[in-house]
């Protein structure tokens, strides 16, 4: 038995001695190569994953940036808040809503003060509906996965994940929907406002940042029973990536804004995919958009009218004989009744009128001539002017009115914003008579039709006797002639839907009473 086994033993001994190291070295070599290959594959996959992640980031950033280029045509009523091409996009949609909000805030105030005319309700509804239609058109383009895919591919499609699959591009993950979100809720929008431009009694959500105030973003606010929501855009920020923990709680499908189903979102999520048939690498990225541009909340093409009527009524024994208008200047002597035949004799009646204008005949002097607190009128004017230029101050308004003399040949004056910029963002408040060169968008002929509010007394002046006017007659009469002076300021509001936002009417009456008795 041992004889038979020995040769085999010898053989084994010989083989193990001769090739042991070689086998070990070869085994180590294969092991090393396998390890190198494994590390290589892992490094390639990790590198490829990073390429996909970078592509997703760049794609999401491009979507958030290029969304600003999506524009839709606006309605002619909102042409003054559109861009230079007459369109509305994400960057100026808040401007559109700002105008609609101001119109409806003005209307709510008109209703509260009982000055809403028959056209008011219809104008408010139309202003809102037109803005909503433009908004919805824009929303449908922005929320569309087709639009988002296009912008995603513009950036991600130009990249490759060559560490996963050499030469292969990066695609959009087809299994991924395109969620949108409204982040930074409660923060500022890109709409600058001044509290003074909001009519009294209306509360607007605002965010103060530095010296500026902005309309609040993604917090619905009500005016004229309509909900307005502005898109939040942080001032001074660029589009940037945000984490899932910021995006997810603000997704439109998870946490919609109450009452605003089609509010314009400000954040987008994209998913990239690269694969080589064996392994797929996906990455998602979310980015928040920002137009890096802010606007003032205005009704750019709107105007205020202002006119003055001075009327003298000439009475004999308490009976009105005639009315004669007089100018807005002091010490006008008018021979009102010439050789007037009374039952007993012929008299000539005179009046010295316009004493209330002794301090000047600028429009400011005319307003101040009212012997009552004229501030409510100034506040009304300023609120409406700030609807054209929110930065306008009371001092500037006073200065504007002081520098404009009242022209007796003018029927009325217009206060409006002259704006030579293509997108109406550089308002220059001006006052001009209707006989001057007014902008073509002001229809002087049908000015009264532009008002959807009803005129109401704003300030009533107490009557004074012989203080600002004097009456005398020839031959003298008994009792002595008297000159009573009174005035009233009337305010007719306009919502701004048809451009007119207010009409200040100053009516001053001087009543001169003469006697037929000697």
């Amino acid at each position, binding site marked *: 038995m041992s004889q038979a086994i020995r040769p085999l033993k010898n053989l084994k001994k010989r083989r193990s001695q001769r090739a042991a190291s070689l086998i070990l070295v070869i085994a180590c070599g294969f092991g090393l190569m396998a390890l190198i290959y494994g590390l*290589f594959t892992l490094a390639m996959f990790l590198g490829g994953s*990073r390429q996909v992640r970078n592509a997703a980031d760049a794609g999401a950033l491009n979507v958030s940036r290029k969304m600003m*280029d999506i524009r839709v045509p606006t309605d002619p009523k909102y042409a003054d808040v559109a*861009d*230079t091409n007459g369109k509305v996009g994400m*960057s100026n949609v808040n401007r559109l809503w700002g105008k609609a909000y101001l119109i409806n805030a003005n209307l709510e105030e008109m209703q509260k003060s009982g000055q809403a005319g028959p056209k008011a309700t219809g104008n408010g509804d139309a202003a809102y509906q037109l803005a909503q239609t433009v908004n919805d058109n824009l929303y449908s383009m922005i929320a569309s996965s087709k639009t988002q895919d296009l912008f995603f591919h513009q950036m991600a499609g130009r990249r490759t994940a060559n560490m996963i699959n050499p030469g292969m591009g990066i695609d959009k993950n087809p299994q991924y929907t395109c969620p949108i979100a409204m982040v930074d809720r409660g923060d500022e929008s890109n709409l600058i406002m001044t509290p003074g431009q909001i009519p009294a009694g209306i509360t607007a959500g605002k965010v103060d940042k530095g010296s500026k105030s902005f309309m609040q973003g993604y917090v619905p606010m009500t005016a004229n029973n309509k909900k307005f929501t502005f898109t939040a855009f942080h001032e001074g920020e660029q*589009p940037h990536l945000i984490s899932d923990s910021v995006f997810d709680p603000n997704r439109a499908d998870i946490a919609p804004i109450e009452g605003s189903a089609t509010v314009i979102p400000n954040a987008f999520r994209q998913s990239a995919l690269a694969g080589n048939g064996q392994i797929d690498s996906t990455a998602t990225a979310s980015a928040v958009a920002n*137009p*890096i541009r802010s606007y003032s909340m205005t009704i750019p093409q709107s105007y205020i009218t202002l006119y003055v009527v001075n009327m003298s009524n000439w009475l004999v024994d308490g009976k009105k004989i005639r009315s004669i208008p007089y100018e807005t200047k002091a010490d006008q002597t008018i021979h009102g009744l010439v050789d007037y035949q009374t039952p007993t004799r012929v008299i000539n009646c005179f009046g010295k009128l316009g004493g209330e204008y002794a301090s000047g005949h600028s429009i400011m002097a005319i307003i101040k001539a009212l012997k009552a607190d004229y501030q409510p009128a100034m506040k009304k004017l300023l609120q409406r002017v700030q609807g054209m230029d929110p930065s306008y101050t009371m001092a500037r308004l006073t200065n504007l009115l002081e520098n404009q003399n009242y022209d007796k040949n003018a029927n009325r004056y217009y206060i409006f914003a002259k704006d030579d910029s*293509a997108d109406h963002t550089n308002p220059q408040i001006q006052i001009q008579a209707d006989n001057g060169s007014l902008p073509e968008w002001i229809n002087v002929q049908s000015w009264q039709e532009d008002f959807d509010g009803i005129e109401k007394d704003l300030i009533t002046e107490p009557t004074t006797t012989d203080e600002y006017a004097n009456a005398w007659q020839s031959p003298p009469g008994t009792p002595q002639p008297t000159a009573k002076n009174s005035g009233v300021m009337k305010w007719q509001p306009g919502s701004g839907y048809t451009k007119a936002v207010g009409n200040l009417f100053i009516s001053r009456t001087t009543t001169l009473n003469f006697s037929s008795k000697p």
Partner: protein
Amino acid sequence: MPSRNSKKKTNCKRRKPSAQTLIEAMVGFIVLIPIALFAVDVVALMSTAQTNEQWAETAARAAGSCSCETMAQTAVKNSLKRFVPSSIISSVDLDKITFDQVNGQVTVATVMQINVPIPLPWMNHFELRASAIQPLLGTPAAQ
């Protein structure tokens, strides 16, 4: 008692296997060590290539946040200044910048100088290039 011849034969037998192992191991290592060293260089090159891509990405992102090409170039240079040279990567520099305002994108190419950790004949210095494209985020939306 074994004969002299047989003793000689036994000594020869004892020396032979150890020499064979040594020779086998030496031959094996002569093959394996260069492979391993080459693998170290390959891994270093792969790693630095990825690092270069990441620097290009960072630089492109910095350029993307600028509103004009001059600012973009400065931003890229500033971002690349943060690179700390090492024995393997001696420098990362801006190769080319394409600031495309029409399409709203910027492409930045970087060039990285590499010294492989195990210098091999004719293969001790490499120049790696990478480019990245990013959207222009610093330009305001159209008026």
